[in-house]
């Protein structure tokens, strides 16, 4: 990997490019907070952000955020309210894009953030859904970010906290899920995408410094590779400057 930026910084800019101008974005926490700031400062100057604890913003907070509830995220907000009002927008289907952090994801984009090894006697108890399941079911589309490890990108998750495309194309419609489901998985090595009609993730681009073979070796299923698989664009100097303005100590971007 280049010395010029960290894997997390590349993930931030890859996530930022998923945000289109004018969109209403359910931002969440950690890297997506930075991705929203990068998108606003570059190609999506009129995007708006929602935070599930009860906030809407346009410009990013002027100081570092370790959580969405840090006071700088409230100062200058467009709306400070209750969670159910923000969830109302999600339930109406007018949130364009959501971000969800994942612990374990499968080939259909289903996320497990609850139990590894079964709910009855879990080997690992993960924190749970938070707003993840709500975003996964109700937002028009969503993107997840995670570390690219074979134990995290699995054939099928053992517990579906936040449903992706279920067992394949058509599953969401059959189950009555209103949103469109996952469109991308941004990892520390690559960007995986899903077909328009849903279904199974494929390798869309590999980050600089990594190879297709390396990605396949760290993926727990036979990952399809796009015929035009490319290299994920590197962060621009302007994007890196924005990330470092929002996260000056590298709290989220591992420059500490």
């Amino acid at each position, binding site marked *: 990997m280049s010395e010029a930026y960290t894997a997390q910084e590349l993930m931030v800019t890859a996530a930022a490019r998923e945000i289109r101008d004018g969109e209403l974005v359910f931002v969440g*926490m950690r890297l997506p907070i930075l991705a929203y700031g990068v998108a606003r400062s570059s190609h999506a100057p009129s995007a708006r952000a929602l*935070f*599930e*604890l*009860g*906030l809407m913003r346009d410009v990013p907070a002027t100081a570092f955020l*370790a*959580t*969405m*509830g*840090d*006071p700088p995220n*409230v*100062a200058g907000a467009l709306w*400070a*309210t*209750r*969670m*159910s009002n923000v*969830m109302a927008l*999600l*339930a109406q289907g007018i949130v364009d894009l959501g971000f969800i952090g994942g612990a374990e994801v499968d080939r259909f984009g289903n996320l497990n953030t*609850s139990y590894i090894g079964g*709910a009855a*006697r*879990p*080997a*690992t*108890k*993960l*924190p*749970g*859904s*938070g*707003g*993840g*399941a*709500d975003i*996964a*079911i*109700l937002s028009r589309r969503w993107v997840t970010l995670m570390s690219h490890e074979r134990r995290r990108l699995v054939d099928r998750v053992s*517990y*579906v*906290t*936040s*449903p992706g495309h*279920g067992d394949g194309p058509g*599953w*969401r419609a059959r*189950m*009555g*899920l*209103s949103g469109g489901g996952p469109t991308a998985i941004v990892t520390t090595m690559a960007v995986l995408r899903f077909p328009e009609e849903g279904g199974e993730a494929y390798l869309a681009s590999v980050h600089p410094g990594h190879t297709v073979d390396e990605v396949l070796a760290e993926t727990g299923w036979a990952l399809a590779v796009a015929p035009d698989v490319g290299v994920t664009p590197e962060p621009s100097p302007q994007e890196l400057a924005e990330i470092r303005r929002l996260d000056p100590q590298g*709290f989220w971007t591992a420059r500490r």
Partner: protein
Amino acid sequence: MSMAEAVERFVPDGTQVAMGTCLEPAIPFAAGHEIIRQGRRGLTLIGPISDSLFDQLIGAGCAERVCAAWVGNVSEGLGHCYRRAAERGEPHPIEIRDHSNFSISLALWAAAWGAPYMPTRTLLGSDILTTNPDLELVDGSVRIRPVQPDVAVFHVQRSDPAGRAHAWGPLGITEEAGLAARRVIISCEQLVQPEVILSDPNRILLPETKVVAVVHEPGGAHPSPLQGFWRRDHAAYRDYAARSRTAEGFSDWLEEWVLGVPDRATYMARASRAELAVRRHLLSVPVDYGDE
């Protein structure tokens, strides 16, 4: 009323208690720590996410059930006490009723409104439906049974002695938790005269008839932030995450910050640092309630 008296009177063993309802801000840590000091057992913890407070109560053995969307440490990750309880039954097993943030809100609204259930499309296709008995799939939509806390505890910016509380910033699920709860304990940063509160009735959080105790507890939300007063103490969360990784480390932490501390004033004398106090104050413009 002191926090010790409020907990003694209104949070007995077996209570279903809602806390941390604003999500990351305004978490009533002082109340939680007093619950631990008084050795409560058999509590049901109700909340959306819990930024470390539920983890502490579970580690201290106070809880038998968790009814929440997420339990961990928001800036640091996993809840280590929660893991030990769920994976190994230490210090004792807990029952987990998983929710999403939206579904726990709806469960509280159902109780607040006296509704038999709340219908929703969230959780369709999620395994949470199969592992939480309070959720039922009927004719293609989800029915969420009411969740009624015995008591809800909130830390707010200011209250008067009668329990008319002003809270601002994002409220999370505070209103539905307060309306659903049989009783509410208000912990406040500032105890003010009724005239201050009644000058702005739109900002009053809940009907005073719900409130059974008002505790003047400055710093009662530390290490969580409180708009206008306190920044989040990220270092305290990091320290807790590191030390709670083992049961022994958690015991040491608990002794230092909870069991060995008589009250919140003593705690804040140790925990408070100058940089945690909000320095950039941003006052809203008063509104006019003029009437004739």
